């Protein structure tokens, strides 16, 4: 759940996904990523979105979308029914991230997960200096009224993957510090604002 901004993460995801594949976008929102995938990559795209407003925007874009809760909805999909299952900027908003992550790699041959890094330096600075829950341009919510309930850092996520046999095939770190570009440097856990992972089941 990120406010609208430069969607460099979308270009990264578009680069990850080969043309003509079958893609499920979880928490597809207004369909802005899915519509790019369908138009630019000719994927067979499906979306799941919890809000009626999001679903209506997707329909207006000509997308196939189901109104549903991804915390409940994935168990009905057969194994490997999609080439790619995308969870972009939604991991932090689900009730059971571990269940959703394992379902992504059951339903999809590969998973793409993008999330805001809570250990990003501005977050650390905000918490350290002001002693309050960080608010940023992209995460502008008050602590008591936010869809984001499960933040994690890049280190946390990597550790989760290692422990749960999730293979990280590709990683792209993003930072808005210099115009929302891909970050090529050291210490992504400190300097990356967002991370996008291409994942597959390790076993």
């Amino acid at each position: 759940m990120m406010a609208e901004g430069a969607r460099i993460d979308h270009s990264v995801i578009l680069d990850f996904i080969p043309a003509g594949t079958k893609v499920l976008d979880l928490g597809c929102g207004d369909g802005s990523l899915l519509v790019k995938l369908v138009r630019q990559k000719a994927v067979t795209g499906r979306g799941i979105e919890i809000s009626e407003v999001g679903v209506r925007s997707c329909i207006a874009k000509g997308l196939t979308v189901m109104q549903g809760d991804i915390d409940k909805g994935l168990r009905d999909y057969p194994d490997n029914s999609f080439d790619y299952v995308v969870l972009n900027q939604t991991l932090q908003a689900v009730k059971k991230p571990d269940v959703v992550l394992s379902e992504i790699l059951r339903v999809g041959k590969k998973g793409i997960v993008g999330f805001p890094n809570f250990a990003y330096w501005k977050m650390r600075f905000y918490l350290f200096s002001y002693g309050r829950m960080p608010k940023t341009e992209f995460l502008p919510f008050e602590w008591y009224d936010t869809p984001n309930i499960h933040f994690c850092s890049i280190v946390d996520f990597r550790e989760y993957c290692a422990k749960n046999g999730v293979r990280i095939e590709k990683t792209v770190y993003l930072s808005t510090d210099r115009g929302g570009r891909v970050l090529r440097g050291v210490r992504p856990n400190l300097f990356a604002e967002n991370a996008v992972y291409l994942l597959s089941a390790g076993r």
Partner: protein
Amino acid sequence: MPEGTEGKTVPHSKQPGSIGLVEKQFYTFCEPPHEMELASGAKLGPITLAYETYGQLNRDKSNAILILHALSGDAHAAGKYEESDKHPGWWDNNIGPGKAFDTDKYFVISSNVIGGCQGSTGPPSINPATGKEYGLSFPMITVHDMVRAQVHLIDHLGIGKLLAVTGGSMGGMQALRWAVSFPDRVIASIPIATTSKLSPQGIAFNEVGRVAIMADPNFHDGDYYGKTVPREGLALARMIGHITYLSDDSMHEKFGRKLRGKKSFGYNFNVDFEVESYLRYKGDTFVHRFDANSYLYITKAIDYFDLSLPHGSLVKAVEGTNTKFLIVSFKSDWLYPPYQAREIVKAMMINGIDVTYCEIDSRYGHDAFLLDEGEMSKIITNFLANVAESNGILEAAST
């Protein structure tokens, strides 16, 4: 209102978005000895279907949309027969130039069902074998039978493939049955406020309605034509039905505990509350336009409907359909609750079917599909535009 028309009544046919004056048409088929064999094994023929059409069929006959009505509906879905008609057709808010089912683009067909009483073959029709009304000798019918009869009509109109089939409630059941049983004839299906099978609660309400009709002393085993009709029973059935079409919220909003034309309780059994008055009015007006036997037959067809038959499971039943679906439910609809729509969506998802699902946050209960608040029509407009575009249908007029 445009300048200069103030104070004058704009004729319905001249109002923007109105399809204007329309005409009911009839098609008769399955003449003996080519009767239609029904799901029950009984045979029916000849069969007449009443229908109406709006808009123009394009040259390659690819822009046809079939509208399917609910329990008490009929073929008169849009427009008026005469300027002086009090009300237009039942889905006039969605059918017409520039509306969701845009008659500038699409050729819209609205078909009545067999078993009905609004011009199609049903219990009040004359059985040619006896020269008398069928009454309860009319064979039992199913939603599948209704659809199979409509296939004859679509053949007659020379349409190979319908761009879309759609309807709410029992109309949604038909829209599902069309897509599942005749997948090659349907490009897109829009089932609204419907289910793959009615809940026991729904069957229970239908049964109470039927018992009310059959308990009416004027019912005479359905043989009441030319005599006093079982109006009390039919009115009661309709009153019960109307309760199930509303929601707790919509009743609060529509009636509250307001009294009808009085400031204090009457302390008798006459109408005190607005809601009582509404139900009585709905019951009383219904008996003038609907046949009690038809009510029995159609409610039974609704109860019998089970999309999973004869395959045994919903997942198997929807397998192999190429139809694109838009399924719509309403959050406050407790007669056809959203969880039932989600079951259909789930079975379709498992089959990889192109299904879009939207749960509209309306407070108006089951009736929401008739009371357009704009959301549903917008969704339908956009969905249809996409279907039409990907099937190369742009403008009916330009062909």
